[in-house]
């Protein structure tokens, strides 16, 4: 069975499981909403500053949400030791990671896009003219978050205090994503919007670097 075939099958399983219960999606969406509202109390949301701060706040909210959303990723494979069943069935263990990170990227992207109109309304920023670019940034950023997050979720699932541990490990590692995504998003939401190519390229590089690292070392993360 090829890597692609196995990944597709597993991705199907991840999506089916999530869309059946929708637990992760709903809790993540509500969490981001809460963060956005709370942030609005810390400065004047309708001022000029809102445009500048807005993109940073948005990505901070995404990062926090992701660090919570990614916790069950490997934890739920521990309940019935289904991880062992997967390891026994797939020819390349990287398929397990690929499927999970693809699913996580999709879930993150979905919540981000669902919340975009809310954010646009709350902070009064025009998103429609630059929508396709925003989707690109959201995708690249979410991919980076998912690649690293999925890997670290495999680590934290095997340690104590895992609820606190995952954010602790994840957030410093994702600093480059926060920096680059905020810059690119900020440029797109500016009064005179433009595409920050350097930042976008940087995100792609980040994604590639960590995908490669995960590919090289992933199987050891799954060892018993």
């Amino acid at each position: 069975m090829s890597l692609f075939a196995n990944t597709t099958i597993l991705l199907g399983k991840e999506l089916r499981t999530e869309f059946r219960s929708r637990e992760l999606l709903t809790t993540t969406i509500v969490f981001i909403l809460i963060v956005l509202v709370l942030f609005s109390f810390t400065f004047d949301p309708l001022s000029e500053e809102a445009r500048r701060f807005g993109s940073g706040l948005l990505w901070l909210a995404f990062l926090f949400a992701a660090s919570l959303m990614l916790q069950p990723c490997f934890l739920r494979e521990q309940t019935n030791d289904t991880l062992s069943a997967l390891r026994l069935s797939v020819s390349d263990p990287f398929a397990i990671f690929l499927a999970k990170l693809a699913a996580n990227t999709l879930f993150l992207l979905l919540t981000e896009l669902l919340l975009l109109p809310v954010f646009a309304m709350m902070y009064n920023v025009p998103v429609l003219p630059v929508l396709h670019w925003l989707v690109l940034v959201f995708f690249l950023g979410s991919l980076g978050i998912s690649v690293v997050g999925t890997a670290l979720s495999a680590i934290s699932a095997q340690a104590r205090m895992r609820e606190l541990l995952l954010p602790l490990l994840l957030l410093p590692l994702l600093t480059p994503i926060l920096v680059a995504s905020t810059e690119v998003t900020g440029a797109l939401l500016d009064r005179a919007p433009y595409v920050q190519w350097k930042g976008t390229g940087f995100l792609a590089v980040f994604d590639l670097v960590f995908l490669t690292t995960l590919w090289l070392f992933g199987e050891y993360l799954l060892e018993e």
Partner: protein
Amino acid sequence: MTLGAVGPTAIRFENIDKRYGGLYALRCVSLTIATGECVALAGRNGSGKTTLLRIAARLVRPSSGKLSFSSAEGVENIAARNAGFVAHATMVYDELTAEENLLLFARLQGIAQPGKRVEAMLHEAGLFERRDSLVRTFSRGMRQRVAIARALLNAPAILLLDEPGTGLDPQGTAWLAETLQRMRDAGCTMLMSLHGESEISALATRAIRLDAGKVVADTQAGASVRSILAFADA
């Protein structure tokens, strides 16, 4: 039941050690299990039975020593060398139905015509009526049936079982014994860890006892299967 064609499937453990930070779970274990043998593995909790099985299943790497299958070097993937594994945990997803679970694993392993195979397995395991129910709603006995069905999907030539009868009612145990007998008679090589005697242990053609990670008794050396299994158990 036709088994996947692999050839003489012996399992050979050569000087297998497994250390967990200085503590030995297995120490210098050397065993050869011939094709078609049905081996009962006895021993107290913590004697290393589960570790040995998980090493045979390629889920755990030995700290030292060599594991090989038939006369060739160990093959990486259990599906590729046709082995099934049944553990304490069910290794199936509670949030999926019985059919979805089996289809998932059948497809992952590249089984031809997975739909048909799954349907046949569901019938065999007596799960066909409940195939659209989430595994979460199943009783312990039924979950075990799903677990075993999963392990038998690719008609393995090697079967590894870790206390498969735990939590099964008499009906379930009878079904399991019957299924395993069919596998054994079809030439499947089996290694199963057990606690004491039962319908399942009666299938064994050989028994091995582990204590503190070492092999301390083997029917090959002359002891009887009964005596090994009857030895005071925890």
